[in-house]
């Protein structure tokens, strides 16, 4: 088959992505892919064109065992967890234990989680500029995305789906310092849409020294005490792209 004919090549790529190439043709096509850059690009363009079709399917929560198996298989040769991190996890668990069932489940998951390996990664700067990120999800899908941009001292928070909240309540975002120090408020989260929150110098330092975030339900306008006062329905890992100071 002539793989230099761009039109034919694109048609084959489309049929490959849709899945209608017959078994033999599919295998031949796949063996071509590695060494044929135009073919690979054509496949990537078709994947990008069509993938939203399968995003329309309602999500289904997989059983917990799936992650447990994955975790066991990636069991890395990672540095042992420091006692400092352990104590912060214990502190965190103490908070989690007192709140909703979802938070308890997440807390348990956090304990079984492997310690983070802090490796400096090279980033394609034009593609990604934020240095800290977190995705807050409930059992089926993401609710908020947080991207922190230390250079401009901005925290961008986008709500993907409105989470349940009474009229006279607010969601408040907290950093949970690894040291076990009290949670640090990062501001109120939107129920819908996007907000840009300023990051103070103190918060910026705290961002570098936390690997977890929590979201609490507070009276409208936020916690009156400066510490979480209501239930904590959501927690998430805070990921650091460029390692930490």
């Amino acid at each position, binding site marked *: 088959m002539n793989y230099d004919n761009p039109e034919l090549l694109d048609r084959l790529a489309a049929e490959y992505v849709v899945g209608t190439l017959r078994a033999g043709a599919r295998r031949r096509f796949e063996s071509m892919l590695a060494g044929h850059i135009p073919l690979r690009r054509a496949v990537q363009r078709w994947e990008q064109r069509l993938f939203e079709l399968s995003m329309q399917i309602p*999500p289904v929560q997989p059983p917990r065992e799936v992650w447990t198996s994955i975790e066991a298989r990636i069991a890395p040769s990672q540095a042992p967890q420091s006692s400092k991190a352990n104590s912060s996890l214990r502190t965190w668990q103490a908070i989690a234990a007192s709140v909703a069932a979802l938070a308890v489940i997440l807390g348990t998951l956090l304990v079984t989680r492997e310690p983070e390996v802090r490796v400096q990664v090279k980033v394609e700067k034009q593609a990604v500029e934020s240095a800290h990120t977190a995705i807050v999800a409930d059992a089926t899908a993401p609710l908020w995305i947080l991207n922190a941009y230390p250079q401009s001292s901005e925290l961008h928070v986008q709500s993907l789906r409105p989470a349940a909240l009474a009229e006279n309540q607010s969601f408040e975002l907290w950093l949970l310092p690894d040291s076990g120090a009290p949670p640090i408020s990062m501001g109120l989260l939107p129920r819908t849409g996007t907000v840009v929150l300023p990051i103070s110098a103190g918060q910026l330092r705290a961002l570098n020294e936390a690997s977890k975030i929590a979201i609490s339900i507070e009276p409208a306008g936020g916690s009156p005490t400066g510490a979480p006062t209501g239930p904590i329905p959501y927690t998430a890992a805070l990921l650091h*792209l460029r390692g930490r100071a």
Partner: protein
Amino acid sequence: MDPLDEARTLLLQRCASGDSAALRTLYDSVAPQLFAVLLRILHRRDLAEEALQEVFMSVWRNASSYRPGRGSPMAWLSSIARYRALDIRRKLQSDRFSVEMTAMVEDTVAAPDTDLVDKADVSSGARRLEECMQALSPQQGQAIRLAFIGGLTHEEVAVRIGSPVGTVKSWVRRGLQALKSCLGS
């Protein structure tokens, strides 16, 4: 860049550097959608669970090959899941499980989601694709959905909608070309 794409790109980059917490966050964020994609093609929870595990092992090993400029993280992730499911499905078919499979395609999505175009929380890419899908002939749209979402072969699509295989092939081919020009890329 879409914030969710940006976050997922960061997570993939962290996975590439061996951060299992990033894989965990990515898993929490995308596993339910990928599991649904696998179930639609495989129709059996045991197969879909095993496939989901394989998909994330593959993501873990190959995260460094993801290139942000070549497509969104979700396009990359869902393609890994779909190809995995298609491989399993075709393998089962060649092992003569096809009777079972054909019997189970009945509940596969065929109808277009007409509400989708109006939903506020859908990405602009999804809305655009849906508009272009609506512009196809109903048969073209149905054949493409059955193949892409349900993982059906030309032959299975033909059986499913009661048309000759040759006709189905040309619906798929022409539908895809029409989509390409509608999407303008």
